[in-house]
């Protein structure tokens, strides 16, 4: 167990850039903008950064061009690619590198211009078929990742009586939070009836059940807790974090209704010495509406199978019993391909108390949960203010 690493490292700077459409800017350029904002926010200079973690949807050797572009000379580098959860998964290796003294300031960064990219998503999908073959799924033409999440939703409905109305409540809650966030891209209020009327794409998921595809970049900076005290913002400490992977393809996962988040969550809570009832705000990677329900269950906020009923009556919406996806989520705030860094930024802002209208009053402990692939990789992090260390 990593109990001795609890609270030893803090997030001291956050930044975002190019949210929505980064017209005229490249992926690297918006990444650099977000990185600069995060480093400035931390009260540091780019020359102080001696640790880097990053990953790219498209470029397999991404750490090298990022080092080159930013002019870094890092003694710690991690570019582990686990899909959208990567930027939560990068926390533990960064903590170990910081605590061991291998480096003293880690920049975690990501950028994507998949909305405005001249390369169409179908071309990317076709290249991926050759470079990253899944010969026991691709020939059936699942509309992945969507179709695998759709089958998870269908199975959850079958096993636990979850309904389309429950999924719609997740969508409406996310949109309600987004209306309070000036940075969110979908801010028009939405009703359950409107969600239920949307056309199916891969049953039982409709257009509203799916996250957006945007441009965007996000970054954060981590340092050891002793150093964090001297920096401009109240540090947000990593109290617990863990990552688990059961496989890659939906057809090979042991279950589509119980994910590896059960184990990543249990390990993160054990490291933090906390339980789900002590979480003030949860940022759960909602690539699709079913994700929120699955992760509420797998992380222990409600019993397995009760997630659909848990989200009813606005329980996760503003004013509900558990604030979830307070920026509006991947469903309504932003989703540039891989979203893990964005939920981390939102959790840090909640714990700093700088979220304006959407601020969760008195938030001291936040849970960030990243998901990657088709429910394939699961990374949980529990963050807390200085008072919780």
């Amino acid at each position, binding site marked *: 167990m990593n109990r001795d690493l609890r609270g030893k490292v803090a997030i001291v700077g956050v930044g975002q850039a190019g949210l929505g459409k980064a017209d005229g800017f490249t992926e690297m350029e918006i990444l650099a903008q977000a990185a600069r904002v995060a480093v400035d926010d931390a009260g540091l200079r780019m020359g102080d950064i001696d640790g880097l973690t990053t990953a790219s949807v498209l470029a397999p050797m991404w750490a090298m061009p990022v080092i080159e572009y930013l002019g870094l000379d890092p003694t710690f580098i991690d570019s582990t690619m686990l899909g959208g959860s990567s930027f939560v998964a990068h926390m533990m290796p960064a903590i170990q590198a910081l605590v061991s003294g291998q480096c003293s300031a880690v920049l975690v960064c990501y950028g994507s211009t998949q909305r405005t990219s001249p390369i169409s998503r179908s071309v990317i999908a076709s290249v991926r078929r050759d470079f990253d073959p899944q010969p*026991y799924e691709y*020939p059936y033409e699942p509309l992945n990742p969507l*179709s695998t999440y759709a*089958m998870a939703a269908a*199975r959850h409905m079958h096993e636990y009586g979850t309904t389309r109305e429950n999924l719609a409540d997740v969508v409406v809650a996310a949109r309600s939070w987004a209306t309070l966030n000036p940075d969110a891209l979908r801010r028009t209020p939405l009703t359950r009836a409107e969600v239920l009327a949307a056309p199916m794409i891969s*049953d039982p998921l409709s257009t509203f059940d799916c996250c957006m595809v945007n441009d965007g970049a996000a970054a954060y900076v981590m340092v050891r807790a002793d150093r964090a005290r001297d920096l401009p913002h109240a540090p947000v400490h990593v109290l617990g974090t863990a990552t688990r992977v059961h496989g890659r393809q939906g057809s*090979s996962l042991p279950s589509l209704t119980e994910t590896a988040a059960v184990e990543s969550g249990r390990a993160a809570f054990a490291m933090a010495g906390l339980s789900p009832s002590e979480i003030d705000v949860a940022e759960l990677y909602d690539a699709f509406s079913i994700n929120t329900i699955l992760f509420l269950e797998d992380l222990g906020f409600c019993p397995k199978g009760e997630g659909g009923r848990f989200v009813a009556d606005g329980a996760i919406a503003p004013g509900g019993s558990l604030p979830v996806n307070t920026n509006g989520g991947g469903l309504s705030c932003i989703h540039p391909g891989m979203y893990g860094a964005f939920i981390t930024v939102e959790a840090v802002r909640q714990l700093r108390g700088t979220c304006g209208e959407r601020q969760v009053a008195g938030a001291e402990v936040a849970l960030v949960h990243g998901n990657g692939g088709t429910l394939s990789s699961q990374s949980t992090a529990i963050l807390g203010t200085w008072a919780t260390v």
Partner: protein
Amino acid sequence: MEQGPEAQYFSFLARGNHRIQRCDACGEAVFYPRLYCPKCGGGLSWITPVGTGVVYSATTVRRKPEQGGDYSIALVDLTEGARLMTRIVDIPSEDVRIGMPVRFAGVGPDTRTVLYRPEA
């Protein structure tokens, strides 16, 4: 020329035969084809599945009629215990139900897929 399990599998399909594997050590039914059992590391032998299974989950992918129309994607738990992706044929996609018994309906025309239909 000796072939790996993946090439062997698709050679079976090219001849219209579906095969899965069973672990020589622990008896686990294994799909997709591998060199070693993912459960215990044991060696694997090809077996002919009995051809029956049950739908674990399914979805209808919505596609414009001019592009070929809607189609089904399903995960089927074979009677042997392994799970695989397939398409359920012979019924409208939206009539595919979780828990529905299905039977092997042959190899797809592309020889890269296996198809299942509702058990009669």
